[in-house]
């Protein structure tokens, strides 16, 4: 993805069919992705899809999936959107901060940071 070589970009286009945005409802960079159980045996998947299904057997944030795939976040999101449409993964719906980070979570985070 560096330099002038168009190869990687073309490959990325291939992965997403030229799409820059995922299908369906939008999701955050740190939305939790989970493989729907039993879906990993599907035969005709490309390697990137297999990787996602394998990694997300443990619920994994989108950013980490991108890291595993070594792909840009938005390409990763197109791939995730496709897998969701196929019913192979679930992606956490966006929630307001107030609903996700409550006092208990804050305390846990503080405690966790202090004991690093």
């Amino acid at each position, binding site marked *: 993805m560096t330099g002038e070589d168009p190869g990687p970009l073309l490959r990325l286009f291939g992965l997403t069919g030229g799409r820059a945005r995922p299908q369906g409802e939008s999701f955050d960079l740190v939305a939790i992705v989970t493989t729907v*159980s039993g879906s990993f045996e599907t035969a005709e998947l490309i390697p990137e899809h297999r990787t996602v299904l394998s990694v997300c057997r443990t619920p994994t944030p989108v950013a980490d999936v991108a890291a595993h795939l070594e792909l840009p976040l938005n390409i990763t999101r197109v791939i995730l959107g496709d897998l969701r449409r196929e019913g192979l993964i679930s992606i956490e719906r966006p929630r307001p901060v107030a609903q996700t980070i409550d006092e208990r979570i804050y305390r846990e985070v503080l405690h966790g940071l202090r004991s690093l």
Partner: protein
Amino acid sequence: MDYAASEPGATAVASALAIKILIAGGFGVGKTTMVGTISEIRPLHTEELLSERSVGVDDTSGVESKITTTVALDFGRITIRDGLWLYLFGTPGQDRFWFMWDELALGALGAVVLADTRRLDDCFPAVDYFEQRGVPFVVAVNCFDGARRYDPAKVRRALALNEKIPIVLCDVRERASVKEVLTTLVTYAVKGV
């Protein structure tokens, strides 16, 4: 492989949570270093491919967007416990990528604005941004080698910061120092709950 009793996704999704903290500031101020100092993984570097039509486009149209540029995005991770992670995102430095911040800032716990006292102006845009959107933030003054220790009061005046906003002197290469910055931010953010 399969865990017999588990409802597809639902249960696990509800119990796992990833929290975003943004590290903002001017180019070369030490954002990536800060992420690297505290992250349990080597900071992951991804490049976002940006298209001319990447904002506000109807994504069901199937119209191919022309990818025109890439923007680097670094992030690191701190595991608080199983199923609770803190993600530190180093925000893109250049002003023309501001629109990316909206997405990064959405749902974020808060932000660290890294400041270099030699180029204090560089962090004005970040301070403005977080103030306008009501995202809790702290200002961390990175004290580079040989740089004078700065009086936080002077920094506060120069940045016209509200009295309540914490200012921390730090060294982004020091783990203990970065920890202090982050605990200051979380402590400050919790007051808004």
